[in-house]
């Protein structure tokens, strides 16, 4: 169980959070213009990397805020935490 530094509350136990999958996947602004394949790309395709991954996390048992986390999935080391809408920091 790791510790996550919520950008709004500070460091808390992992059990207070929910993982929300890959980060930086924008919902298409005009879904009706997309082909089936393009829509499927948005809907279903997610990366599952051994190594550095950009993820969304939600402080579900805390401030309820969503934010982004850069995590090394091979050892669970968290490299950075940043708010929604922000660009990922250099690591």
């Amino acid at each position, binding site marked *: *169980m790791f510790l996550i530094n919520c950008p709004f509350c500070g460091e808390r136990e992992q059990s207070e959070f929910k993982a929300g999958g890959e980060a930086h996947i924008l919902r298409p602004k005009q879904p009706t213009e997309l082909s089936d394949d393009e829509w499927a790309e948005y809907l279903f395709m997610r990366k599952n990397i051994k190594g550095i991954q950009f993820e969304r996390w939600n402080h579900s048992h805390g401030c309820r805020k969503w934010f982004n986390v850069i995590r090394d999935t091979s050892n669970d080391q968290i490299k950075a935490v940043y708010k929604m809408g922000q660009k990922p920091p250099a690591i």
Partner: protein
Amino acid sequence: MVKNLRTKGSKFIDQTSRVSFKFNGTKYFGFKGDTLASALLANNIHLIGRSFKYHRPRGIMTAGSEEPNAIVQINDNTAFTEPNVRATEIEIYEGLKAKSQNCWPSVNFDIGGINNFLSPILPAGFYYKTFMWPASFWLKYEYFIRHSAGLGKSPKLPDPDIYEHKYIHCDVLIIGGGISGIMAAKMSAKRGLNTLLVDENPNIGGSTIFQNSKFYKINNQTSCSWLENEIKEINKFKNLIIKTRTSIAAFHGYNFLLARENLTDHLPANEKKYKVRQRLLKIRAKKVILATGALERPLVFNNNDRPGIMLSSAIKKYADFFGVACGKENILFTNNDTAYETAISLDQKGIKVNAIIDIRENCNSEISKEVEANGIKIYRSSTVVDTYGYKRIKKISVMQLSSDGQSVKGQKLFINCDCLGIAGGWTPAVHLFTQSGGKLEFDEKDQIFVPKIYPSKQISIGSCNGDFELDQIIYKNTKILKEFLEISESEYDNIDVSGASNLNKRNIWLLPSDKILGKTKSFIDYQNDATAKDIKLALREGFRSIEHVKRYTTTGMGTDQGKLGNMHALGIIAETTGVKMSELGTTTFRPPYTPLPFGTIVGRNVGEFFDITRKTPINDWHVKNNAKFENVGQWKRAWYYPVNNESMHDAVQRESKAARESAGILDASTLGKIDIQGTDASEFLNRVYTNSWTKLDIGKCRYGLMLNEDGMVYDDGVTTRLDKNHFIMTTTTGGAANVLAKLEDYLQTEWPELDVYLTSVTDHYATISICGPNSKKIVSKVIPNLDLSEVSLPHMSFKNTIIDNIKCRVMRISFTGEQSYEINIQANYGMSLWEKIMDCGKEFNITPYGTETMHLLRAEKGFIIVGQDTDATLTPIDLQMDWIVSKKKYDFIGKRSLYRSDTMRDDRKQLVGLLTEDPNEVLEEGAQIVANLNQKPIEMLGHVTSSYFSPNLNKSIALAVVRGGKKMLGQKLFIPMENKNINVTIVDPVFLDKENNRLNAQL
């Protein structure tokens, strides 16, 4: 026969307080401080159990948690019984009852022992090879396997003990209270850090605390008296907590560890009462110091498993710590100097050592010279080639080793003994280190794996770090700890240490015999009966990965996780395949390090504390009125209200009729309620629901369907516009939390530009629904001032009102198809309002109904329940709810997916109604639906999702999903059941009042 195996003067055992206990039905005595193993050994009992596969007699091998053989069932046939207890760990107490496992009818005569003679046909992978075919025989095989297997019996009664969980946060956690752990504790506590020291034993001090030898001196004191003094000193620190009988079960990332603190297992029954038995400690440490020590390795030779064959270090501990001689005629068999320490200890206590068999050609350490000077015969360059004695070792045969160590030569020599100590060197206990994600490195010189890369702020010291000699341990620990704890000067800087042993060892993983390998039994994993021969067979059969060899031979898969023999398995694989140990790697050590009872894992979360229970404000009324309850998520909901021992069926029929013929009342408080405010609230609803919300007038309600982005139905409910920028959304009972989370997600991450605020208000309101043709009369009695006319409060509208000075909301919405009113009132007033309505409704026979009747009534109307009639594979189109999907809206969650080629197929499963040919036949929910009974394999078209006997229609009705069902109206299908086929016809899912006349009907 044997009178006294107790030596005098062990200060660790209270020889004045005698304790009686039973083993296999016979009463024995031991002393306070004994483990079951030491007490049994003092009574000259070595035979404890039978091995798993061959049922060979097995005895006590070790003096610690690594014990593979001496595992027992304690307090059999009681609620307190526990299997797989290591006799080497459990401390005896008055009245303890222990029993051998894995033997029938008794440990002395065991029928399964025949497997030992059958062993040539029980090779590695025997079970995999034999029990594969034919498949129909599997049931018989399983019976055989289960019957002959059996490491103990699990308790049949509920666990009467109390367990709890505790969180601990500390600066430094030290695991292991041996000499290294004690040094670390002192340095850390002195530095002012909040320190926790845990040790699995009843006392700290490790093996140094009984090292009373002139060969090991610290500052001119024997190492044990020096350490005693250190313990006295660390006991004074206020910022140091020492927890004994506490073993670390798991070491997770970010220095999060689980430990089991054993509080009462060593106490007699009357002292255990009402006390917490074990505590699961959840420790978060800033820094972790591993001082877990090392485990002595056995030697692998022919018949190395007989009772009386023990680790040399265990024999020393039984003599020095417990004051017990394990045998009267002892032999030690070694590849290093450890056995000489044991010999000196035994010799000092007058316990006879017949010989030392040393596979090394020579050794010149002071300690070995002393042993020789004391007249103990040493056989060098020799090995034990066989052992004799069935239930206890009697004799060994010894031969000279060839110079390459791969074969034996010369005369065979027989020596009598009743105890054989084996010393194969030391394996650092790196289990916890690897659990935490640490990477090991192989040390060729000592043939050991040692910690190399640490994944968190932790350090290994002492013998778990590969340092075995006293001087080396102390000097190196000091250096490592100063750096790790950021200390500039330490009292250990100028310490004077002397040690005498010489750790040169000769490592031979598999010792040769005069017999060929195929005729030998050289055990590697004692608990699972895996031999060197099995490993070589697995390699011949093509297994290469250590993980595969492990599973095929079951090496290391017992309750001890192969703590003793894993290194030998690796060594033999490396030798046979020519791959270096360093490249082979080790198998993964998984938590828990030692077995953990379920009781400890669940702690207080048992019985009614297993999960949170949510009750509505009207719950007490339901209880008082004999309601039966059902769980909906964490909610307790009234299911039905039986009157005079009514069956569930009769109660539901009565409630359903009453609701349609006069009036029914339902506690709907569990429905999820989300308060939505903000200038963009209606735009937000437009985006999350399939229908349009912009034009909903203030004071009106609308039903909405929410999809996932994949187009599948996710939730439904009625949302009411309270004001221009204020809505209240209802969700399904089970979906409330997830819907809120999903809406928050979109709001925060996709549409942050929207001015919308969401608040969960589920628990703030009690919701009471009154339905039926008399409902209007009742509500007008409850709220006389409210205009209930069709103009003032038509279907799908709402009014703010006041009942007895309390503000509330009345909504005219219906889930039953009857005229209905839903009153929302602040939760505290829920009960009084409910009672008031019951009172006003008395003259109309107002009938409380539960969830079952609610489900029946809505099924008559063909209303879906999300999660019962849907399962995340159905779109609104599949549900025949096209009417609720806006064609005009540019976008909403899931819209694009409704136009995917897959969701547009017309042979998808679709919601339909079913009527049975026999109107009294009620279908089983979940039953499969087919078209052709003779087809093979029979094609399943769908299944029944809801099914009831409708008292209002006086026939059985059902909802189902059927492939292409929309176009099959009127078609006859079949439902094959175990003993009959039921004929059904596909019909429209709305069974009652298709014209919605009842919504306004009044009596």
